[in-house]
């Protein structure tokens, strides 16, 4: 259990983060209504078209639903939905008058085709999805209480079929969506997007966005300071440094859970429990991640659940050693999904485990980013999304490979489900981490989405006369 002062400090940090976000929104407040026009240049470390958290993905595509800033599930391409048969059947009515970027109308068949394609890449909780007039029907063997929230996730955004998609200038297929921006081209590591004048949500304020991919962090910051970029990524471990360099930094609340997955199923339960007790979360938080985020031993942050303090996060080495007893654990490998601070965190965890009598070797991800399949342990981040505790927990459990939804939509049921899952010690939560972005003074009304991505569809740039000194 963390001491009260540490928890107060955590709460204070959370408030500071929220205030920073608010302050940023305030300082970015428009003196006039948002101005139409202008082009924005964004630089990112990864691939902007990567499915899970690529910045371009949600600018081009929409889901049947979306998750609001406050975590509530809202209509998007579906205007309403209803369930029956105890959540085994769901019907989503599509928004009329919506078109893909190639002007073809969005219809139920296009939605079904897109979702079936999604299910080839990721596990889907439904067994069948069918068209029914201007609606789509999902059927499942198990109840799907959180389907509306699930359909807001990146994996289930609606794409036009590959056959419909035009070839962009690179020769590769364009991502064809209904979102506020359409893909213009993608070449030399730069993705160019242009405003969708016919967007069903209204044309975005910006005319165009240019996203420079695979750009190292120090080059992003340099470009931002020289006025060559408007938006750059800031890793959680670098947020403090960015502030010290007097950059305008927008920090999201906690949107990712850093955790160790235990893949080695032969490890005895008491050894897993011993590993969880041996890990020094406070050191990760203070040293590696420079006091950004929150220490945790639970799956959901306190801001979502309100009960995370019930999961003690303090290191207890003597109890870990006692739990291990005289058993000599086999040598283990720890793979890392990431570089930089993630790699440092893995090495630190290996030392922690060594103190408790475990022998752990850290192995890096392959050059293409894939994680070795035979790793005993994997350190990675999981997105934290969803409105109610049950929705967020179900989304998290699904990502952790568990398809047994929490049916009751209250905190008590979520707590019980979370406790039951964590008592198996298949996953060891460590930290909640924010996402952060450094922004130029030109951007107005920048807010972050529930996933911690900048909502560039609602960003505007000042008119030329306003920019003049």
């Amino acid at each position, binding site marked *: 259990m963390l001491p009260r002062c540490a928890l107060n400090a955590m709460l204070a940090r959370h408030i500071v983060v929220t205030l920073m976000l608010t302050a940023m*929104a305030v300082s*970015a407040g*428009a003196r006039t209504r948002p101005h139409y026009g202008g082009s924005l240049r964004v630089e990112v470390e990864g691939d902007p078209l990567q499915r899970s958290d690529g910045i371009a993905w949600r600018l081009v595509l929409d889901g049947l639903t979306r998750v609001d800033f*406050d975590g509530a599930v809202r209509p998007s391409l579906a205007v309403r939905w209803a369930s029956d048969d105890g959540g085994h059947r769901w019907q989503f009515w599509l928004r009329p008058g919506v078109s893909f970027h190639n002007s073809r109308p969005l219809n139920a068949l296009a939605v079904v085709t897109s979702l079936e394609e999604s299910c080839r890449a990721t596990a889907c909780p439904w067994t069948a999805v069918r068209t029914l007039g201007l609606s789509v029907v999902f059927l499942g063997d198990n109840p799907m209480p959180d389907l509306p929230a699930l359909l807001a996730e990146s994996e289930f955004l609606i794409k036009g079929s590959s056959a419909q998609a035009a070839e962009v200038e690179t020769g590769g297929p364009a991502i064809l969506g209904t979102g506020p921006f359409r893909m213009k081209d993608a070449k030399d590591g730069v993705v160019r997007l242009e405003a969708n004048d016919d967007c069903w949500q209204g044309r975005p304020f910006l005319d165009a966005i240019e996203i420079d991919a695979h750009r190292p962090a120090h080059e992003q910051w340099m470009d931002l300071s020289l006025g060559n970029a408007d938006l750059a990524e800031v890793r959680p471990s670098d947020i403090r440094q960015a502030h010290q360099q007097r950059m305008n930094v927008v920090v999201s609340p906690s949107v990712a859970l850093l955790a160790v997955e235990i893949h080695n199923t032969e490890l005895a339960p008491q050894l897993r429990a011993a590993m969880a007790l041996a890990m020094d979360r406070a050191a990760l938080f203070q040293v590696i991640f420079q006091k950004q985020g929150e220490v945790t031993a639970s799956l959901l942050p306190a801001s*979502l659940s*309100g*009960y995370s303090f*019930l999961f003690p996060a303090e290191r207890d080495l003597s109890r870990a050693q006692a739990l291990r007893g005289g058993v000599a654990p086999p040598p283990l490998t720890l793979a890392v999904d990431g570089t930089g601070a993630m790699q440092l965190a893995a090495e630190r965890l290996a030392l922690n485990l060594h103190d408790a009598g475990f022998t752990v070797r850290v192995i890096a991800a392959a050059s293409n980013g894939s994680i070795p399949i035979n790793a005993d342990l994997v350190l990675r981040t999981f997105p934290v999304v969803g409105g109610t505790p049950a929705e967020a927990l179900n989304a998290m459990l699904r990502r952790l490979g568990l398809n047994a939804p929490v049916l009751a939509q209250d*905190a008590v049921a979520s707590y019980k489900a979370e406790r039951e899952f964590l008592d198996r010690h298949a996953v060891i939560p460590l930290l909640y981490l924010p996402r952060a972005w450094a922004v130029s003074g030109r951007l107005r009304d920048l807010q972050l989405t529930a996933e911690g991505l900048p909502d560039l569809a609602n960003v505007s740039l*000042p008119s030329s006369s306003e920019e003049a000194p």
Partner: protein
Amino acid sequence: MAGNKDIRADAKAKFMMSLKTRLGRIACCLFGMMLLLMVSPLAQAESPWEQPAAQLAAQVAEILGAGQAQLTVNNRSTIAAQELHAIRWLLEQDLRARGVATSSAESANVIRVTLSENVRERLWVAEVVEGNQTQVAMVHVDREPMAAPVAEAGMVLEKKRVWDSLTATAISGAPVLASLETKAALVVLEQDDIVVFTMTGAGWREDKRFPVERQRASSRDARGMLVPVADGFGFTAYTAGTECSGSYAPSAGNGDWSVRCHESDDPWPVIGEPIANVHAFYNASRDFFTGVITPSPGVDLIPFYSMAALPRAAAGGYALLVSGIDGKVQMVVGNALKIVSGTRDWGSDFAAIYSGCGAGTQILVSGSGEVESDHLRAYELPAQEAIAMSAPLEMGGTVMALSTAPDGASVWAVVRKNARDYEVDRVTALCP
């Protein structure tokens, strides 16, 4: 003598008895008053904590059964520290009523109550420790609404909440573009609907909802306008590319509303009688007027967000004040366009108010377009310089639209308090 002694002794005994009774009564009264004083904050108004305390106590008692336990109460929420004593007192009372005696001394059983919260609700958690076993009980507590601050000083602007989307209707989440009170109803123009509210004993309640059918997508910063028609009952609604007419036929019951919409690029009446009759063309795919107005002012206007009229006897009756999309505020006086100074703090929305204070007419101006807590401030423009006439009036959200009320003496403000919560306020000016 003996008889006298007996009588005296009897009287003394009676006096002593009476004194004891009186003292007892006084003590009882004092104790009762003390008790009343102790619980008076709870007794005067029903405490919001009574119900959750009772629910949590019931769950704890079910786990623990009758007996003794040590009670601790920790606060991890935004509940004020001075409330904790009352909450603990309620918990103790409710536990005692269910057979659980609490103490602060060491006990085999421990009840650790934590007052927690998440972004949606408060959560009170009790960890009930019996030896090595810990069981958990939880109850939800609704968050209490927060009061919005009101400004005070100088020429005072006063706001009165007319309507709130959270209390008046099911939450549609749609942006509110404009609002108007007619003789028959309160009309609210949402992005996709026109909603008619009728007054009930509990305030404005949704009566009818009419969809605004439109052929093209609305703009991202959608805007609209509601204008009363001559009979005082009906209205005309303007949104991007669509115009709707609402009419009301009074009858014995609630009356009958009908709304008809059609595609339209006709100009919107940005300034109405009796000051002037000015219409402006709106750019349906953006959030501003094109700059073309009728009748022509004799000069070319750049696209603008807002327009208001100020009485100017020397300039043919009135001068037009224009908030350009370039951030500049200009005034059309006669056939000339002049820059207004002192408007650095102005947002893009303003409306005239004919208050009778000072010069008689002021401009109420939003502080900015998109901040967490916007404000309105009254200005006069004796020449081409804006002079603040009031302290800023905090609006508790972002001012999304301003319009002069039909009576001219007040301004209607649409305020976005958060993504789903809109409020319509009537703002008036009180002379110093």
